[in-house]
C-alpha cells in the first residue's frame, strides 16, 4: 500500500480528529467528503506531515513519515492547498521553481506541465493578476510538478468554470493512469462518485464510513454525514446524487 493511515488522532483546541484506518493503492483516488469543519483539511495536513499526529502513524510505502526528513516527505507527497498568498509579484514561472524544490530535475518538465494544465500563456505573468480559476490551475500545475507519487488536493475544483473543471478531472484521471495516488477533498458528490475509487466520509473529526465507493456512497451514509436527505438517480451519464431543498 503506498499510503496507510492507522489510528491517527490530532487535537487542535476544542477540535479532535480521529481516524482508525484508511489506505490507498497506487493508481487510485480516495475521495473525502463531509460538512465544513469535519476535519477534511486537517486529515490532509496529517497525511503530508504538516501536522504531527498525537497518536498513530501515517505510512508511505510502509515507512512512517514522522521519521522522514521534510524533503524526503515532499518527494513522496504533495499538497495542493486551497489558496496561496503572494505578497510580492511572483510570476507563474517563479512559483514553478519553488515547486521543484525537492526535485530540481523536474524543472525540465515545467513547459510540459503548464501545457497540460493549459496555462502556458501565463508563464511570465504575475500570479496576483490571475483570476481565481487560473490561480487554481497554476497551483495544480505546481502540485504535479513536485512529482510525488501521492497527491493531496484540497477542494481542487473550487472557482473553476465547467470547462476547466472538466479539464482538471481529466488531468486527475491521466495521473491515475500513470500510477499516481490521489486524495481529494470534494464537495460535489456526483463528481466524487464518478472519479473516486474509494471514499471516506467524515463528520465532526471522525471517519464514519470508508471503503469502495459503491459500498460507501449511499443515501443512508450521506444522510448520516450531512444530516439532510439525499436522492440517488442513475442517468445514462452515470450515477448522480441530489439533496432535497
Amino acid at each position, binding site marked *: 500500500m503506498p499510503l496507510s493511515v492507522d489510528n491517527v488522532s490530532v487535537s487542535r483546541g476544542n477540535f479532535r480528529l480521529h481516524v482508525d484506518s484508511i489506505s490507498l493503492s497506487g493508481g487510485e483516488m480516495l475521495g473525502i467528503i463531509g460538512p465544513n469543519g469535519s476535519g477534511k483539511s486537517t486529515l490532509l495536513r496529517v497525511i503530508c*506531515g504538516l501536522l504531527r499526529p498525537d497518536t498513530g502513524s501515517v505510512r508511505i510505502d510502509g515507512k512512517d513519515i514522522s521519521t522522514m526528513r521534510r524533503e524526503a516527505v515532499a518527494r513522496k507527497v504533495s*499538497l495542493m492547498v486551497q489558496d*496561496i498568498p503572494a*505578497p*510580492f*509579484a*511572483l510570476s507563474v514561472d*517563479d512559483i514553478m521553481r519553488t515547486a521543484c524544490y525537492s526535485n530540481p530535475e523536474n524543472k525540465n518538465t515545467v513547459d510540459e506541465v503548464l501545457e497540460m494544465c493549459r496555462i502556458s500563456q501565463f508563464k*511570465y505573468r504575475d500570479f*496576483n493578476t490571475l483570476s481565481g480559476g487560473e490561480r487554481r490551475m497554476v497551483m495544480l500545475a505546481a502540485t504535479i510538478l513536485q512529482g510525488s507519487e501521492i497527491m493531496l488536493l484540497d477542494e481542487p475544483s473550487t472557482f473553476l468554470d465547467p470547462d476547466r473543471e472538466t479539464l482538471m478531472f481529466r488531468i486527475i484521471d491521466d495521473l491515475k493512469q500513470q500510477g499516481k495516488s490521489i486524495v481529494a477533498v470534494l464537495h460535489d458528490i456526483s463528481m466524487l462518485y464518478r472519479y473516486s475509487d474509494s471514499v471516506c466520509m467524515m463528520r465532526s473529526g471522525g471517519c464514519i464510513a470508508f471503503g469502495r465507493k459503491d459500498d460507501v456512497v449511499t443515501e443512508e451514509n450521506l444522510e448520516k454525514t450531512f444530516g439532510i436527505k439525499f436522492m440517488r438517480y442513475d442517468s445514462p451519464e452515470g450515477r448522480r446524487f441530489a439533496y432535497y431543498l
Partner: protein
Amino acid sequence: MDETRSENKSMLKATGILKWLASLIALFLILTFSLFIGPVKIPYMNIIRIVEEQIFPWSNAFPRSGVEWEIVVLLREPEIIGALIVGSTLAVGGAVVQSVFRNPITEPYIIGVSSGAALGAVIALDLGIMIAGLYTLPLFAFMFSVVTVMVVYMSSFRKGRVPLTYLLLTGIAISLFVSSIVAYVIYSNLRLQSSIYFWLMGSLSQLTWTDITILLSVNFLSMFASALYWKEMDSLQLGEEYAASVGVNVERTKLALIMLVTFSTSVSVSFTGLIGFVGLIVPHMARIIFGGSNRVAIAGSAIIGAIFLMICEDIANVVISQEVLPIGIITGMIGAPFFIYLLTRISRGAYAA
C-alpha cells in the same frame, strides 16, 4: 503560439540583462561622482591624480601626504565605500525579512536590531566604559542588538514553532520597551545628549579603513549566505504551509535567515548608528525593477541599496555648505515620501497583499 512564447522569453531575458547592466553602470558612476563631492572643495584634477596614485602607486601622480590626500583617502573614500556596504547590507536585510515575514512593511529594525543597538550605545556612553578603546561603542551596540533579537525570538516560541505574527508583535513590543529605557538614560544624563544624538541619527562620516575592513568581510559574507537561501525565501513568500509541503524545513530556514540578517545589520548599525528607511524601501524598489523573486531581488536590493545610500550621502554632504548632515536625516526625508508613494501603489493592487 510556441514562437511568441520563445520570443517573449528571449525579450524578457534581454531586458533583464539590460537592467542589471544599467544598474551596475549607475553604481559605478555614482561611486565615482561621490568622490568629487564633499564639504571641502578640492580641485577635480587633484582628486583624479590622488586616485591614480592609489591605483598605480608607481606613477607618482600625487604626493602621499598633505590635507587634500588625507581628505580624499582617509575621509571621503571610507565614507563612500561605507555607504556602499551599509546600504546594500540594510537593503538585503530588509528584502530577507520581508520575504520571511511575507509582509511588505517590515524591516530588520522591527525585530529589535535598532533598539538593542541604541541601548548598547547609550550604556557604553553613559557609564563611560572603554574596555575596547574606540571599538567599545560598536561592540556594545552589536552585543545588545544581537541579545535583543535573541530575546524577541525566544519569547515568540509557541509549541516548538515561531509563528510569524507572534515574532513581529513581540519584536515591536520589546523594541518599544528597550527604546523607553534608552529614552530614560538619555533623559537622565544631559551630558549624553549631544554625543548620542549623532549616533541615533546615523552617520557614515567617522568610518575608518579598519571599520571598512570589518564591515566588508562580515557583511558580504552574511549577504552571500542569505542570498543562497533564495529558493527557500520564494517558497516562504507563498506561505509557511506551502513551503513545508514542497520540502523546505521552515523553522530551520527562518532561524538561519533571521540570524544572518541580525548579524549583518547589527554590525552595520553598530558602526554607523541608526540609518532608517533603507531596509524598508529599497527592497520594494528592487522588486519593482527586477521582479518579486529573491533570485533577482536579493542582488537587486544590494545594488539599489548601495546606490541609494551613496546618493543620500552626497546630499548630506552638500545640502548645508561646510557641514555634513547625519545621513539618517536624508534617508528619512527622501525615504518617507517615497514610501507613501509606494503605499499608494500597494493600494492600487500592485502588491495585492
